[in-house]
């Protein structure tokens, strides 16, 4: 079966910066995939290549087996980009109707507005929407053409809890209806809630491509903090399963999935430990430690 989206050894250079350093990725029909990574990891660049908004400097991008700039491919996609804008004087319903006119077989306007959770604001002018509502409007515009594939770049940025829930629910419903969905996020929690597959991108390369369960299993789950009576340095922790090590004066903080092993080794190495604390690590923080290797 032809993948909906495919990147083959895709590279992208912006001047001196190589944003993507050879990404291989194939997304099949009906998949809900989250591209996860910190800011500047290459998520937006990946989406831009998939959609033909930018051209790869090396490798190849395919959309429905075609060149991504091919109208036949792009017309089957709904897209929500970061940092887009529109004039404020049209109402929500008016701009949704305008965008519906661009597509051969659109959803009814009310349905698109409801998917954005904007029923109560349908007759409001765009200029009066909050940042989060505006973001939901762009979501409604992305889905109003009833696309087969949906590309969402940081869809929930700036949304309040309520709005975020509405959009996440819509994404789930569209996925259940068989749409292929690719979204970017830098929240592990969001990716975990939604996606059946998480692709972790860091500094232009894919560092993990697995189910949420497998990704979480790789993440250090405990935070260990203590004061050392003797002086400690990087050498003290050599060979230990430690991530995100921080030593300030004599206070040490680290993340590990095997804290017992680490502490045992430290005792054996003669480190005098005081004020020991072992707590569950913050999921987001732990995830970031995965992407910020020294």
């Amino acid at each position: 079966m032809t993948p909906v989206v495919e990147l083959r050894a895709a590279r992208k250079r912006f001047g001196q910066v190589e944003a993507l350093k050879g990404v291989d990725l194939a997304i099949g029909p009906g998949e809900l995939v989250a591209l996860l990574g910190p800011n500047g990891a290459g998520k937006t660049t990946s989406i831009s290549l998939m959609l033909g908004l930018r051209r790869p400097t090396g490798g190849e991008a395919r959309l429905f087996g075609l060149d991504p700039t091919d109208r036949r491919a792009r017309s089957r996609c709904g897209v929500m980009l970061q940092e887009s804008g529109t004039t404020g004087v049209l109402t929500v319903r008016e701009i949704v109707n305008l965008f519906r006119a661009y597509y051969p077989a659109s959803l009814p306007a009310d349905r698109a507005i409801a998917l954005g959770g904007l029923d109560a604001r349908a007759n409001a002018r765009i200029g009066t929407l909050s940042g989060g509502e505006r973001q939901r409007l762009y979501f409604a515009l992305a889905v109003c053409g009833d696309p087969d594939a949906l590309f969402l770049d940081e869809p929930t940025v700036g949304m309040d809890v309520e709005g975020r829930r509405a959009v996440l629910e819509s994404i789930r419903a569209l996925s259940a209806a068989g749409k292929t969905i690719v979204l970017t996020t830098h929240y592990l929690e969001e990716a975990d809630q939604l996606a059946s597959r998480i692709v972790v991108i860091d500094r232009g390369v894919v560092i993990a491509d697995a189910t949420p369960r497998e990704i979480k299993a790789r993440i250090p789950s405990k935070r260990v903090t203590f004061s050392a009576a003797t002086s400690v340095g990087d050498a003290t922790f050599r060979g230990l399963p430690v991530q995100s090590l921080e030593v300030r004066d004599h206070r040490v903080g680290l993340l590990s999935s095997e804290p017992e092993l680490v502490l045992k080794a430290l005792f054996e190495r003669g480190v005098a430990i005081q004020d020991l604390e072992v707590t569950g690590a913050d999921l987001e923080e732990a995830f970031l430690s995965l992407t910020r290797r020294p």
Partner: protein
Amino acid sequence: MTRPAAAPFPQMLLAQTKSELLMRWRVPAFSVTNLALPIVFFTFFGLPVAHVVRGDGVSIGAYLLASFGAYAVGNVMVYGFGIGVANERGMKVDRLMRASRLPPLVFMLAKVVTALVFAFLALVLLIGFGIVAGGIHQTPAVWATIIGRLLAGSLPFIALGFAIGYWSGPHAAPAVANLIYLPLSFASGLFVPLNQLPGFVRTLAPFLPSYHYAQLAWSALGAGRESLGESLLWLAGYTALFLTLAVRAYRREERAKFA
């Protein structure tokens, strides 16, 4: 499942034009200025001499209505496209349109149709004002010829507007449009007849686009200084020049944002 790649062209153009008109209607400050300014200028420069008839039988009032008509249409085009396009770039509407499936051609055509509607309104209001307030008389056929020619010949100013809109940012665009269009109109004899302008301006005028554009209207009154073909040739040349500049700026931006 195969579906057509896009909605029918007329459907997209109609919806886009309707929205453009609605947006203009709801931000009246800009459109009203476009419609009122030529009438205000005509009141100062035209009304006091509206009754005068030249030695060759040409009504000065009608001549100045034609001049300010040319100014009015160019005004709608240069400002509408120049400031409009620059503003939309500033608001990142281009990114939203990129994400949609609207062909850029339809996006631009809708703007052209909208501008033509406003230019038509501006001409009707101006000429109506001249007839009522200045008692200026011409046959309906002459007025229709002036309106038709000015709308059809406005292409170089649409291209100039696009060029300004793509070369300058949203804050600079109004100033740039003013700096280019006002001196251009003045030096082409649209505000004050050429024979009352300094010698170097009179030498310069026959090289300016608005000079040849106004000839389209003046010649409808028998007051043209060149043949219709000559005017059209000049306007075609300027269209090509401005269009080249606009396309270059557009491509430069495309490369920066979407390459």
